[in-house]
């Protein structure tokens, strides 16, 4: 490599106020704080992969929320594309898997569309999985 320019001399812009912020994709729901039955539902969702790529639908950023009340799991999710041909396949897979979680009596799945899905919603783990698959993200 001919370029060996060290970046260690780089200094932050003097006119900008730097603060520690939240991570860009921190809006993506991944269920990290979930406990009990909700955590079990998240774990199950983690095991479901996108139909075309080896990435969990949670890391892909499709999930908008999970709550369990009186044994009924409410799952809000989106799809990357409104014309997704795998829509029914994926929603049925989610419904079946969540319904099979011990303690869950029923599942209500709602597809939501805003804020719309973009690649920003993919988690760091998801990006790694996609890179390994050969995609540049």
């Amino acid at each position, binding site marked *: 490599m001919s370029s060996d320019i060290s970046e260690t001399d780089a200094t932050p812009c003097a006119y900008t106020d730097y603060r520690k912020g939240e991570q860009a994709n921190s809006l993506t729901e991944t269920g990290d704080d979930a406990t009990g039955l909700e955590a079990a539902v998240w774990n199950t969702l983690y095991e479901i992969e996108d139909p075309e790529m080896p990435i969990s639908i949670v890391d892909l950023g499709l999930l908008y929320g999970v709550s369990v009340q009186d044994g009924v799991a409410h799952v809000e999710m989106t799809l990357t594309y409104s014309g997704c041909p795998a829509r*029914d396949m994926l929603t049925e897979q989610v419904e079946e898997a969540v319904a099979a979680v011990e303690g869950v009596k029923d599942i209500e799945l709602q597809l939501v569309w*805003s804020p*719309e899905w973009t690649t920003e919603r993919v988690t760091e783990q998801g990006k790694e999985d996609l890179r390994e698959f050969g995609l540049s993200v």
Partner: protein
Amino acid sequence: MAATFENPADLEEREQMALSTLLKRLGDDEFVLAERYTEWQVRAPSLESDLALANNAQDELGHARLWYDVLEDLGFKERSLVFEREPSDFRHSTLVELPFEEGNWADPILRSYLYDVAEELRLEALEDSTHPKIADRVRKIQSEERYHLEHAQSWMERLADGDEGHERLQDVLDRLFPHALTLFEPVDSDVEADIVDLGLRDATLEELREEWLSVIVPYLESLDLEIPEIDQTDDDKLEVAVDQEMLPDERGRDGGHTDAWFDLYDEFTRTYRELGRSETTKIMEKPNEQ
């Protein structure tokens, strides 16, 4: 009373009618346009244009489904909305049902342009809809629609640049323009007023049409295309008087359709009927259910 569309079961008849009418206008336009676009698959002028139009068709099918989903809250099922519905119950504009002139690429391009400008405007008028599910869907659709207009315009400009292409565009414009006006025709004028009164959409059909004309007329003129029967009385101000005589006999929205629609309907429902289907999305039973 202030209508709330959170709970579809609580809606009064007037609210249900306004909602279902709006959704049929939206969903049917998208569905039928997609049906027509797919006719160009493997026939478009180049591989890229073929894929682009096929992809737009898939987008429109996705959007039709987003609108039909909301209709399902009112008790409709996908099969009753598409494959088992009376063709005269469809509320799309005649612009989307007309067959293409064979081999005339200017037709889908200009049709897409006229339609996509109208769609952009009506989506804007739905952004703050009082129905949460409608508002929820708008941005997703907008983000997928932007390319459509870009696609149509880049082709329009290429076509208008040559003599033959320009002539074709003008012929198609003469033929399609009256049908494009039906995009803004009422299904029923009382129900259309309710759609706005209830805040489902915040612009009237007349306002949308005026806005549409103020976008398309200058653009078409910039390509040296003449808009049929439009009188421009003042150079600075666009004076467009749309009278009923400019409209075609069939308006689509009111259930009156051209013969071409009934043929298209027979065609896309044929397989469903011949195979005796009763479900739209199941190709076969799951092995463990047989």
